[in-house]
Protein backbone atom coordinates (compact mmCIF):
# COMPACT_ATOMS: atom_id res chain seq x y z
CA UNK A 1 0.00 0.00 0.00
CA UNK A 2 2.78 2.42 0.88
CA UNK A 3 5.31 3.04 -1.90
CA UNK A 4 8.06 4.26 0.43
CA UNK A 5 8.89 2.82 3.81
CA UNK A 6 11.65 1.68 6.12
CA UNK A 7 12.33 0.39 9.60
CA UNK A 8 14.42 2.59 11.89
CA UNK A 9 16.08 2.16 15.26
CA UNK A 10 15.80 5.18 17.54
CA UNK A 11 17.48 4.66 20.90
CA UNK A 12 16.08 1.24 21.84
CA UNK A 13 12.90 1.41 19.80
CA UNK A 14 12.32 -0.17 16.41
CA UNK A 15 9.76 1.74 14.34
CA UNK A 16 8.27 1.08 10.91
CA UNK A 17 7.57 4.28 9.01
CA UNK A 18 5.92 4.79 5.64
CA UNK A 19 5.00 7.62 3.33
CA UNK A 20 3.49 8.31 -0.06
CA UNK A 21 6.44 10.62 -0.72
CA UNK A 22 10.04 9.41 -1.05
CA UNK A 23 11.70 12.49 0.43
CA UNK A 24 10.75 12.02 4.12
CA UNK A 25 11.80 8.39 3.98
CA UNK A 26 15.14 9.31 2.41
CA UNK A 27 15.77 11.75 5.24
CA UNK A 28 15.33 8.90 7.73
CA UNK A 29 17.97 6.73 6.04
CA UNK A 30 20.62 7.36 8.76
CA UNK A 31 18.38 5.50 11.22
CA UNK A 32 17.46 2.66 8.83
CA UNK A 33 17.92 -0.90 10.06
CA UNK A 34 15.84 -2.66 7.42
CA UNK A 35 12.58 -2.89 5.57
CA UNK A 36 9.38 -1.85 7.29
CA UNK A 37 7.24 -4.47 8.93
CA UNK A 38 3.85 -5.23 7.46
CA UNK A 39 2.26 -3.28 10.28
CA UNK A 40 3.33 0.34 9.90
CA UNK A 41 3.75 2.31 13.13
CA UNK A 42 3.70 5.79 11.65
CA UNK A 43 2.67 6.88 8.17
CA UNK A 44 3.02 10.32 6.64
CA UNK A 45 0.56 10.95 3.83
CA UNK A 46 1.44 14.15 2.04
CA UNK A 47 -0.64 13.73 -1.11
CA UNK A 48 -3.83 11.95 -0.20
CA UNK A 49 -6.04 10.85 -3.04
CA UNK A 50 -9.64 11.86 -2.75
CA UNK A 51 -12.38 9.40 -3.56
CA UNK A 52 -13.85 10.40 -6.90
CA UNK A 53 -17.35 10.57 -5.55
CA UNK A 54 -16.31 12.73 -2.60
CA UNK A 55 -16.34 16.49 -2.75
CA UNK A 56 -14.36 16.76 0.46
CA UNK A 57 -10.60 17.01 0.24
CA UNK A 58 -8.59 14.63 2.34
CA UNK A 59 -6.13 16.56 4.48
CA UNK A 60 -2.49 15.42 4.49
CA UNK A 61 -1.92 13.59 7.72
CA UNK A 62 0.16 11.52 10.09
CA UNK A 63 -1.29 8.18 11.07
CA UNK A 64 -0.32 6.01 13.98
CA UNK A 65 -1.72 2.61 13.18
CA UNK A 66 -5.30 3.36 12.20
CA UNK A 67 -5.44 6.65 14.11
CA UNK A 68 -5.16 9.95 12.31
CA UNK A 69 -3.07 11.77 14.91
CA UNK A 70 -2.47 15.01 13.02
CA UNK A 71 -3.55 16.67 9.82
CA UNK A 72 -2.55 19.85 8.06
CA UNK A 73 -2.30 21.29 4.56
CA UNK A 74 1.05 22.76 5.66
CA UNK A 75 3.27 19.87 4.55
CA UNK A 76 6.44 21.28 6.08
CA UNK A 77 4.71 21.63 9.42
CA UNK A 78 3.29 18.14 9.14
CA UNK A 79 6.69 16.57 8.50
CA UNK A 80 8.17 18.70 11.29
CA UNK A 81 5.64 17.20 13.70
CA UNK A 82 6.67 13.70 12.64
CA UNK A 83 10.33 14.50 13.31
CA UNK A 84 9.52 15.90 16.75
CA UNK A 85 7.37 12.86 17.44
CA UNK A 86 10.28 10.60 16.51
CA UNK A 87 12.65 12.75 18.56
CA UNK A 88 10.70 11.74 21.64
CA UNK A 89 12.00 8.21 21.30
CA UNK A 90 15.51 9.51 21.91
CA UNK A 91 14.71 10.76 25.42
CA UNK A 92 13.38 8.30 27.98
CA UNK A 93 12.24 9.69 31.31
CA UNK A 94 14.83 9.73 34.06
CA UNK A 95 14.28 10.03 37.83
CA UNK A 96 11.93 12.89 38.62
CA UNK A 97 10.44 12.75 35.14
CA UNK A 98 7.59 10.92 33.53
CA UNK A 99 6.53 10.51 29.92
CA UNK A 100 2.77 10.87 29.62
CA UNK A 101 0.84 10.00 26.48
CA UNK A 102 -0.32 13.58 26.38
CA UNK A 103 0.31 16.46 24.06
CA UNK A 104 1.20 20.00 25.02
CA UNK A 105 -1.26 22.71 24.08
CA UNK A 106 0.54 26.03 24.44
CA UNK A 107 -0.16 29.73 24.42
CA UNK A 108 1.82 32.65 25.78
CA UNK A 109 4.62 30.45 27.09
CA UNK A 110 2.55 28.06 29.19
CA UNK A 111 1.18 24.62 28.46
CA UNK A 112 -1.69 22.33 29.32
CA UNK A 113 -1.19 18.60 28.80
CA UNK A 114 -4.10 16.96 27.03
CA UNK A 115 -4.51 13.20 26.53
CA UNK A 116 -3.07 12.57 23.09
CA UNK A 117 -5.94 10.35 21.98
CA UNK A 118 -8.47 13.16 22.60
CA UNK A 119 -6.69 15.39 20.10
CA UNK A 120 -6.73 13.04 17.12
CA UNK A 121 -8.40 14.87 14.27
CA UNK A 122 -8.58 18.18 16.08
CA UNK A 123 -8.55 21.19 13.75
CA UNK A 124 -5.17 22.86 13.94
CA UNK A 125 -6.53 25.70 11.85
CA UNK A 126 -9.07 26.44 14.56
CA UNK A 127 -6.36 26.22 17.21
CA UNK A 128 -4.15 28.52 15.14
CA UNK A 129 -6.94 31.09 14.99
CA UNK A 130 -7.10 30.97 18.80
CA UNK A 131 -3.33 31.34 19.08
CA UNK A 132 -2.97 27.85 20.54
CA UNK A 133 -0.16 25.61 19.38
CA UNK A 134 -0.66 21.91 19.87
CA UNK A 135 2.21 19.50 19.30
CA UNK A 136 0.76 16.20 18.07
CA UNK A 137 3.46 13.97 19.50
CA UNK A 138 3.31 10.48 20.92
CA UNK A 139 4.05 11.55 24.47
CA UNK A 140 5.36 14.51 26.42
CA UNK A 141 8.23 14.41 28.87
CA UNK A 142 7.30 16.06 32.18
CA UNK A 143 9.83 17.32 34.71
CA UNK A 144 7.98 17.11 37.99
CA UNK A 145 10.20 19.34 40.16
CA UNK A 146 9.80 22.30 37.82
CA UNK A 147 6.28 21.27 36.73
CA UNK A 148 7.36 21.75 33.15
CA UNK A 149 6.93 20.03 29.85
CA UNK A 150 10.26 19.28 28.20
CA UNK A 151 9.40 19.52 24.52
CA UNK A 152 11.44 17.15 22.41
CA UNK A 153 13.47 18.66 19.59
CA UNK A 154 13.35 16.93 16.23
CA UNK A 155 14.96 13.55 15.74
CA UNK A 156 18.72 13.90 15.51
CA UNK A 157 18.73 17.53 16.60
CA UNK A 158 21.59 18.58 18.90
CA UNK A 159 19.28 21.05 20.63
CA UNK A 160 18.12 20.54 24.20
CA UNK A 161 14.43 20.09 24.95
CA UNK A 162 12.52 23.33 25.44
CA UNK A 163 11.04 23.70 28.92
CA UNK A 164 7.51 25.11 29.11
CA UNK A 165 5.71 25.57 32.46
CA UNK A 166 2.61 23.43 32.81
CA UNK A 167 -0.46 25.19 34.17
CA UNK A 168 -2.70 22.13 33.93
CA UNK A 169 -2.83 18.50 32.94
CA UNK A 170 -5.98 16.73 31.98
CA UNK A 171 -7.12 13.16 32.16
CA UNK A 172 -9.88 11.62 30.04
CA UNK A 173 -13.21 11.53 31.76
CA UNK A 174 -15.98 9.08 31.08
CA UNK A 175 -18.40 11.14 33.13
CA UNK A 176 -18.68 14.84 33.84
CA UNK A 177 -15.69 17.08 34.37
CA UNK A 178 -14.56 17.74 37.87
CA UNK A 179 -11.86 17.35 40.44
CA UNK A 180 -10.81 13.80 41.23
CA UNK A 181 -9.06 12.48 44.31
CA UNK A 182 -5.34 11.87 44.25
CA UNK A 183 -5.55 8.09 44.19
CA UNK A 184 -7.82 8.20 41.16
CA UNK A 185 -5.53 10.72 39.49
CA UNK A 186 -2.59 8.37 39.96
CA UNK A 187 -4.64 5.37 38.84
CA UNK A 188 -5.79 7.15 35.67
CA UNK A 189 -2.37 8.64 34.95
CA UNK A 190 -0.75 5.22 35.31
CA UNK A 191 -2.67 4.14 32.23
CA UNK A 192 -1.13 7.06 30.33
CA UNK A 193 2.50 6.53 31.25
CA UNK A 194 4.67 5.85 28.25
CA UNK A 195 7.51 3.34 28.45
CA UNK A 196 6.54 1.98 31.88
CA UNK A 197 8.59 -1.09 32.66
CA UNK A 198 9.12 -3.18 35.77
CA UNK A 199 12.66 -1.82 36.11
CA UNK A 200 11.61 1.84 35.99
CA UNK A 201 8.18 1.51 37.59
CA UNK A 202 9.20 2.81 41.01
CA UNK A 203 10.74 6.11 39.97
CA UNK A 204 8.19 6.62 37.21
CA UNK A 205 5.18 6.12 39.47
CA UNK A 206 6.83 8.18 42.20
CA UNK A 207 7.02 10.97 39.63
CA UNK A 208 3.34 10.51 38.75
CA UNK A 209 2.36 10.71 42.42
CA UNK A 210 4.58 13.76 42.93
CA UNK A 211 2.97 15.43 39.92
CA UNK A 212 -0.48 15.03 41.47
CA UNK A 213 0.79 16.87 44.55
CA UNK A 214 2.50 19.61 42.55
CA UNK A 215 -0.43 20.15 40.20
CA UNK A 216 -3.67 18.20 40.62
CA UNK A 217 -5.03 16.77 37.38
CA UNK A 218 -8.44 17.68 36.03
CA UNK A 219 -10.86 15.66 33.98
CA UNK A 220 -11.79 16.56 30.44
CA UNK A 221 -14.55 15.17 28.28
CA UNK A 222 -14.15 13.45 24.93
CA UNK A 223 -16.04 16.24 23.15
CA UNK A 224 -13.45 17.90 20.91
CA UNK A 225 -15.37 21.14 20.57
CA UNK A 226 -15.55 21.40 24.32
CA UNK A 227 -11.87 20.52 24.56
CA UNK A 228 -10.86 23.41 22.32
CA UNK A 229 -13.16 25.84 24.11
CA UNK A 230 -11.71 24.80 27.43
CA UNK A 231 -8.15 25.21 26.19
CA UNK A 232 -9.08 28.69 24.97
CA UNK A 233 -10.45 29.65 28.37
CA UNK A 234 -7.70 27.96 30.41
CA UNK A 235 -4.52 29.06 28.67
Amino acid at each position, binding site marked *: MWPHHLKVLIANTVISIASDDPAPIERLEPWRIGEADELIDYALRLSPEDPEESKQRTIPNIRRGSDNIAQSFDLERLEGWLWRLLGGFERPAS*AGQVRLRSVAAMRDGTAILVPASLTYGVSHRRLDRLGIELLPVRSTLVDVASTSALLDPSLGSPEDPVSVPIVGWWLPSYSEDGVID*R*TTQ*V*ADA*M*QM*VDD*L*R*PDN*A*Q*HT*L*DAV*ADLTFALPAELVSFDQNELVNRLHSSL
Partner: protein
Amino acid sequence: MSEANGGGRVVWVDSLPADDDAPWQDVHAEDVLRVVTDASSVLVDEDTVVFEVSSRTTHILDPLAGLIWRCINGRDSLEAILADVADAINVAPAKLISDVLPVASSWLTDGLVEVVKSE
Protein backbone atom coordinates in the same frame (compact mmCIF):
# COMPACT_ATOMS: atom_id res chain seq x y z
CA MET B 1 12.65 -10.31 46.00
CA SER B 2 12.68 -6.67 46.94
CA GLU B 3 14.97 -3.73 46.51
CA ALA B 4 15.11 -0.22 47.79
CA ASN B 5 14.72 2.40 45.11
CA GLY B 6 14.48 6.09 45.85
CA GLY B 7 11.76 7.02 48.28
CA GLY B 8 9.63 4.00 47.52
CA ARG B 9 10.05 0.28 47.41
CA VAL B 10 9.74 -2.31 44.67
CA VAL B 11 8.32 -5.72 45.48
CA TRP B 12 8.29 -8.52 42.95
CA VAL B 13 5.39 -10.80 43.72
CA ASP B 14 6.20 -14.10 42.10
CA SER B 15 7.07 -16.02 45.25
CA LEU B 16 6.39 -15.07 48.82
CA PRO B 17 6.98 -11.38 49.35
CA ALA B 18 5.64 -9.61 52.38
CA ASP B 19 6.36 -6.67 54.57
CA ASP B 20 8.90 -7.99 57.05
CA ASP B 21 7.49 -5.83 59.83
CA ALA B 22 3.84 -6.71 59.39
CA PRO B 23 2.32 -9.72 61.16
CA TRP B 24 1.57 -12.45 58.64
CA GLN B 25 -2.12 -12.82 57.80
CA ASP B 26 -3.45 -15.95 56.17
CA VAL B 27 -5.97 -15.88 53.37
CA HIS B 28 -8.31 -18.83 53.08
CA ALA B 29 -9.76 -20.18 49.88
CA GLU B 30 -13.28 -19.26 50.96
CA ASP B 31 -12.37 -15.63 51.58
CA VAL B 32 -13.76 -12.87 49.43
CA LEU B 33 -11.06 -10.28 48.78
CA ARG B 34 -11.22 -6.69 47.72
CA VAL B 35 -8.38 -4.53 46.42
CA VAL B 36 -7.82 -1.54 48.71
CA THR B 37 -8.72 1.77 47.12
CA ASP B 38 -5.16 3.04 47.54
CA ALA B 39 -3.73 0.44 45.16
CA SER B 40 -3.85 0.98 41.41
CA SER B 41 -2.60 -1.33 38.72
CA VAL B 42 -1.59 -1.30 35.10
CA LEU B 43 -0.60 -4.09 32.75
CA VAL B 44 2.97 -3.75 31.49
CA ASP B 45 3.73 -6.37 28.87
CA GLU B 46 3.01 -9.60 30.74
CA ASP B 47 3.50 -8.22 34.23
CA THR B 48 1.08 -6.26 36.33
CA VAL B 49 2.41 -3.20 38.13
CA VAL B 50 0.54 -2.34 41.33
CA PHE B 51 1.28 1.01 42.96
CA GLU B 52 0.23 2.00 46.46
CA VAL B 53 -0.07 5.76 46.48
CA SER B 54 0.25 6.35 50.22
CA SER B 55 3.28 4.14 50.81
CA ARG B 56 4.79 4.74 47.36
CA THR B 57 5.35 1.01 47.06
CA THR B 58 5.42 -0.65 43.66
CA HIS B 59 4.53 -4.32 43.36
CA ILE B 60 5.41 -6.23 40.21
CA LEU B 61 3.12 -9.22 39.77
CA ASP B 62 4.06 -12.03 37.43
CA PRO B 63 1.50 -12.99 34.75
CA LEU B 64 -0.39 -15.54 36.87
CA ALA B 65 -0.42 -13.36 39.97
CA GLY B 66 -1.52 -10.44 37.82
CA LEU B 67 -4.35 -12.44 36.31
CA ILE B 68 -5.65 -13.37 39.74
CA TRP B 69 -5.18 -9.80 40.94
CA ARG B 70 -7.41 -8.53 38.15
CA CYS B 71 -10.07 -11.11 39.01
CA ILE B 72 -10.38 -9.98 42.63
CA ASN B 73 -13.67 -8.13 42.71
CA GLY B 74 -15.02 -8.05 46.25
CA ARG B 75 -17.83 -10.45 45.30
CA ASP B 76 -16.41 -13.85 44.40
CA SER B 77 -14.45 -16.05 46.76
CA LEU B 78 -10.83 -16.75 45.97
CA GLU B 79 -11.81 -20.38 45.53
CA ALA B 80 -14.36 -19.50 42.86
CA ILE B 81 -11.89 -17.22 41.09
CA LEU B 82 -9.17 -19.86 41.15
CA ALA B 83 -11.54 -22.52 39.86
CA ASP B 84 -12.17 -20.38 36.79
CA VAL B 85 -8.50 -19.56 36.37
CA ALA B 86 -7.50 -23.22 36.80
CA ASP B 87 -9.99 -24.15 34.13
CA ALA B 88 -8.64 -21.46 31.82
CA ILE B 89 -4.99 -22.42 32.20
CA ASN B 90 -5.67 -26.14 32.48
CA VAL B 91 -4.21 -26.91 35.91
CA ALA B 92 -5.74 -28.72 38.87
CA PRO B 93 -7.67 -26.28 41.09
CA ALA B 94 -6.20 -27.76 44.27
CA LYS B 95 -2.67 -27.20 42.97
CA LEU B 96 -3.45 -23.62 42.01
CA ILE B 97 -5.05 -22.91 45.37
CA SER B 98 -2.03 -24.22 47.25
CA ASP B 99 0.27 -22.07 45.11
CA VAL B 100 -1.80 -18.91 45.26
CA LEU B 101 -2.93 -18.80 48.90
CA PRO B 102 0.53 -17.80 50.16
CA VAL B 103 0.74 -15.06 47.52
CA ALA B 104 -2.73 -13.78 48.39
CA SER B 105 -1.74 -13.90 52.05
CA SER B 106 1.26 -11.71 51.26
CA TRP B 107 -1.08 -9.22 49.56
CA LEU B 108 -3.24 -9.19 52.69
CA THR B 109 -0.20 -8.80 54.91
CA ASP B 110 1.12 -5.97 52.75
CA GLY B 111 -2.25 -4.23 52.83
CA LEU B 112 -2.93 -4.53 49.11
CA VAL B 113 -6.20 -6.39 49.67
CA GLU B 114 -8.69 -6.76 52.46
CA VAL B 115 -11.04 -9.59 53.35
CA VAL B 116 -14.63 -8.44 52.91
CA LYS B 117 -16.21 -11.80 53.66
CA SER B 118 -14.80 -14.86 55.29
CA GLU B 119 -16.79 -18.08 55.29
